[in-house]
């Protein structure tokens, strides 16, 4: 029998049992929809984090004390402010080294207050990172040298404490100490619902006094060229370990951070897809089950078709197409729902969902595959039925 006739017979059979076909498809629909949606959320998260890491600047190297690892608390820092000059000589450009020491502190104006991240930094931040100002100026070398109590506000915290007032030149209190606002950052947006516009930058010298510390948490270095990043990374660590004998330091590049994030989020996406894949598998078992019922119900029809000259493979093809039709129609509907849900999540929640085209192709391919895999067993059974026995079945 030609493919077209087998296709027609399979389609008619599905149409004759509309409700049963629809219910069988539901399993596949749920499976495919969740694969598409979860992969969209996973790859959306990955894209967003990567954008943010890339948005920090270019050719960045981050130097921290101890071992660098995601998710574990940083070691107690032994870095000092004079390491800026020290590493500046290693790089050959003092302006390429930015220092930070951070703490969460209360920022207050009148009765309005909020706890935010206060970063003590030096004047090199605008040269090292890409972080444009909306108004005013950034901290100067003089501000850092003279421990001047001036502050640059993130766009959101500026609105929170000043409302519609122009913050430039006004006073804020940070942990009870008064600072004068000299600049406001341009908005950066938020990552995973956490705003990056709530940061307050003050001179690192002032911050150290405010926090009661003499350490620096981390140093960020901008390599002169892309090609010098890897080489510089090694030299920076070596220089620090020479200066502080017996102590460990680590340097990570933007590429390494991206690679680590990519690996973690890629794995997360894979795990999500695999969990969703299980429901697809369950859907496949449902298809197999309903196909077995269908073969049993239509035993006489199979016997008749054989009596009229159908070969084993004609019957097999007819039932296999029926199973594949079930799963591929279910797959298409599931893709539609998954894409729709991802777009909705994008519009109405902070979940960044990016529909990956490969996941759509994969989901459709898998649903066809599930149809073949779970359809073959019932279809072979149909094809092998003895026509004499089949015709006698009531």
């Amino acid at each position: 029998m030609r493919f077209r006739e087998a296709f027609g017979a399979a389609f008619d059979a599905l149409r004759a049992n509309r409700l049963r076909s629809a219910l069988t498809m539901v399993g596949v629909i749920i499976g495919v929809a969740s694969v598409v949606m979860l992969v969209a959320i996973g790859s959306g998260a990955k894209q967003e984090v990567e954008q943010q890491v890339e948005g920090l600047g270019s050719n960045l190297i981050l130097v921290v004390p101890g071992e660098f690892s995601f998710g574990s608390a940083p070691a107690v820092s032994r870095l000092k402010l004079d390491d800026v000059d020290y590493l500046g000589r290693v790089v050959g450009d003092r302006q390429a080294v930015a220092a930070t020491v951070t703490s969460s502190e209360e920022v207050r104006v009148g009765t309005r207050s909020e706890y935010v991240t206060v970063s003590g930094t030096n004047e090199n931040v605008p040269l090292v990172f890409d972080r444009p100002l909306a108004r005013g100026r950034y901290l100067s070398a003089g501000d850092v040298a003279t421990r001047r109590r001036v502050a640059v506000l993130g766009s959101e915290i500026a609105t929170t404490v000043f409302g519609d007032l122009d913050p430039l030149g006004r006073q804020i209190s940070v942990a009870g100490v008064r600072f004068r606002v000299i600049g406001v950052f341009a908005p950066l947006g938020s990552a995973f619902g956490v705003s990056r516009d709530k940061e307050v930058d003050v001179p690192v010298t002032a911050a150290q006094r405010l926090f009661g510390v003499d350490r620096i948490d981390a140093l960020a270095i901008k390599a002169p060229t892309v090609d010098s990043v890897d080489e510089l990374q090694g030299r920076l660590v070596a220089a620090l370990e020479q200066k502080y004998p017996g102590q460990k330091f680590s340097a990570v590049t933007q590429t390494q951070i991206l690679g680590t994030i990519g690996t973690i989020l890629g794995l997360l996406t894979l795990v999500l897809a695999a969990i969703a894949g299980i429901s697809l598998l369950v859907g496949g078992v449902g298809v197999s089950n309903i196909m077995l019922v269908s073969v049993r119900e239509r035993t006489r029809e199979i016997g008749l078709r054989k009596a009229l000259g159908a070969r084993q493979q004609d019957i097999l093809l007819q039932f296999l197409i029926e199973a594949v039709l079930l799963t591929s129609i279910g797959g298409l509907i599931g893709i539609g729902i998954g894409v729709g849900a991802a777009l909705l999540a994008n519009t109405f929640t902070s979940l960044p969902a990016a529909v990956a085209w490969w996941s759509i192709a994969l989901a459709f391919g898998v649903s066809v595959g599930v149809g073949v895999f779970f359809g073959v067993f019932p279809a072979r059974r149909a094809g092998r039925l003895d026509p004499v026995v089949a015709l006698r079945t009531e």
Partner: protein
Amino acid sequence: MTAGPATGAPAVEAIDVTRVYSLEGVEVQALRGVSIRIDEGEYVAVVGPSGSGKSTLMHLLGCLDRPTSGVLRIGGREVAELSGNELAALRNSRVGFVFQSFQLLARTTAVDNVALPLVYGGVGRKERRERAVQALTAVGLAHRLGHRPAQMSGGEQQRVAIARALVTDPQVLLADEPTGNLDSRSGGEVMAILERLNAERQVAVVLVTHDHEIAERARRQVYFRDGLIERDTGAA
């Protein structure tokens, strides 16, 4: 008595054929050494009580089953030497079946039911329809082409089934109690059609029946008992 002249060439031939079934471990001898030759254009009634082996013979003659031992030739070809696909092709082209319960596809129109064997014979869509319409016209159902089985009487349904059996121009038409589910009037019509087709088309008709009146209308009667041919009025 209406029956076309036999032309002499054997359409089907069985020589000392046996068929043993194993039903839940118990061996049942359905046929215990049957020899029969049915020539082209013959009209044979097969008569006998239930379980006497007539249905088994029909299945063998129709290539639905293979003998346990003995020689079975359909259209000159030895069944034992044929593969499953070759048997299917033989069923498709040489044999037509008419069943007691019609066995039409319920959701399918008369013309598509009749065209079904041509689908498996690899005939193109247009030619399939033409031949199906011809076959339906030959059984007097040209006005029922688009009807589904549920929209037709039992007699009409059986005539659709006869059209389906004839559409591939087979050498043998195997009818298993074709009037068993019909009232006497439609039964009579169906018998008349079978007899006319036998006469006009030289197709051999093998008719299994309980009804002695119907059996008597055939030129030749074969009586079965306990898996053996008890009497064959046409045996040489």
